[in-house]
């Protein structure tokens, strides 16, 4: 369970990234955060694994206030929260397998990981994860030999190998074309359902959010302006989130002919 209690974040340059956020995310939920660019979506998500540190309030993950975490505690927190990035953040020159094994870094000792001494279990877990995103045949390819969608699938496999309790995905499909985007979202959803991993995804576009989310959180100017199930999203919600009524082009497809 993740609880934001009155969390605010002011960046060193004075930008207010988050403003008095109060929200609770229950285990197993699939939450999509939507909002305009600069709304604070990334800041929200990155607070949860402390890639950024909120400046006030308290943020509980599994009932521990993570804002005080340091060193080992922090690494433990990060080990249980997997993260997927917009640009996949793979090491381009390393093989797919090596990239996926990187998900185990928090679990294995430093020396073992540096000497590439992975246990059979780790290896088969990595392979298993690659199979779950259907990319096992690329196991020995270098990451930069893959297409964007394939790279994002590798990064999902990396997170799966991490066996996290939470998955945070920061605009996982923004660099992908729509069919591939849907594929990736489908995988995320599947994992959420099959493994019961709590998943929080940032998206720019509300229509894709509505297709996949159990729950949608709308952000604007660092504040939460909507929080509810996808079915409750209305014209008014759009206005709150985007500051004006919805237009065709706010959906990814733009005008749709069908």
């Amino acid at each position: 369970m993740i609880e934001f209690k009155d969390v605010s974040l002011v960046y060193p340059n004075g930008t207010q990234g988050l403003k008095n956020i109060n929200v609770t995310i229950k285990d197993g939920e699939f939450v999509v955060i939507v909002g305009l660019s600069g709304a604070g979506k990334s800041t929200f998500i990155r607070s949860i694994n402390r890639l950024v540190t909120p400046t006030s309030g308290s943020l509980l993950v599994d009932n521990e206030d993570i804002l005080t975490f340091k060193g080992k505690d922090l690494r433990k927190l990060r080990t249980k929260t997997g993260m997927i990035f917009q640009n996949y953040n793979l090491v381009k020159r390393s093989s797919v397998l090596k990239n996926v094994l990187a998900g185990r870094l928090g679990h294995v000792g430093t020396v073992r990981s540096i000497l590439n001494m992975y246990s059979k279990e780790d290896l088969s877990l990595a392979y298993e994860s690659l199979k779950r995103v259907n990319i096992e045949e690329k196991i020995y390819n270098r990451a930069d030999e893959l297409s964007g969608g394939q790279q994002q699938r590798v990064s999902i496999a990396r997170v799966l190998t991490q066996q996290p309790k939470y998955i945070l995905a920061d605009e996982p499909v923004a660099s992908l074309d729509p069919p591939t985007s849907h594929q990736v979202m489908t995988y995320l959803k599947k994992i959420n359902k099959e493994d019961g991993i709590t998943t929080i995804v940032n998206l720019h576009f509300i229509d894709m959010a509505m297709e996949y989310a159990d729950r949608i959180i709308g952000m604007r100017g660092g504040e939460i302006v909507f929080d509810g199930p996808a079915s409750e999203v209305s014209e008014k919600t759009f206005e709150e989130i985007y500051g004006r009524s919805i237009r065709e082009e706010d959906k990814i497809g733009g005008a749709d002919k069908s």
Partner: protein
Amino acid sequence: MDQYSLPPKPKNAFMKRIRNIVIAIAVVALYIWTFTSIDIDWGRAIERSLNNFQRVIPKLFSPDWGALGEVSLSMLETVFIAFAGSLMAAIIAVPLAFLAANNMMGKYFSIIGKWILSAIRAFPDLILAILFVVAVGPNAFAGVLAIAIGSTGMLGKMFSEIIESIDMQVVEAMQANGANRIQILFYAVLPQIIPEFLSYAIYRFEVDIRASSILGIVGAGGIGTMIIFAANNRNWNEMGMILLAIIVVVTIIDFASAKIRQKIV
């Protein structure tokens, strides 16, 4: 978790592995040869350094302030010579770099250009110095020429590598505009390389201030002559003063060049 065995590695990985093993053996052999046949008496070296440490090092750290005036003057002279020399080198290096870069003039020119640059780099400073003394007499200008040619080899190599790394798509875009080769050069290539060029040229200026031995040979005075005489007279205090002067000057240039680089990148 079920046990899954990994798929076999692809075939060419096997060949790669063989190749890597061969390379590894070669490298290990090279090192064994190196370390076994080089003649260093480690015990003696250590003992020696312990004995000599207090003979040399403390003196380096108590620079001879009496030499300050002379050293500053020589340093100033060196800075001017290095500036003129490295600027000249930066200019000569540009056409050579274009010749040597494999994405500009074609493969054969590239090979010729690379050979020219290597040949320049292979020429020892000493001989360059002699040639220029003969050409223009023993003076600062000979030093400028020697530094210019000496730096051209290195700068040309660096420059050509920068040119090889530019974004060729932009060049293609200019082609698609109907631009000719020279226009492409000025519009697509130069804007991409100028900051790096300047940055390396400034770096080279720094190096040239230290490439002072060559100036001593040509009688250009400068700090190089002082270094050699301080060494020959075992005048470590004066050497300390010289070092201090070089450190100060290079630090100032380093600082200024960092500022300039920030501006231009």
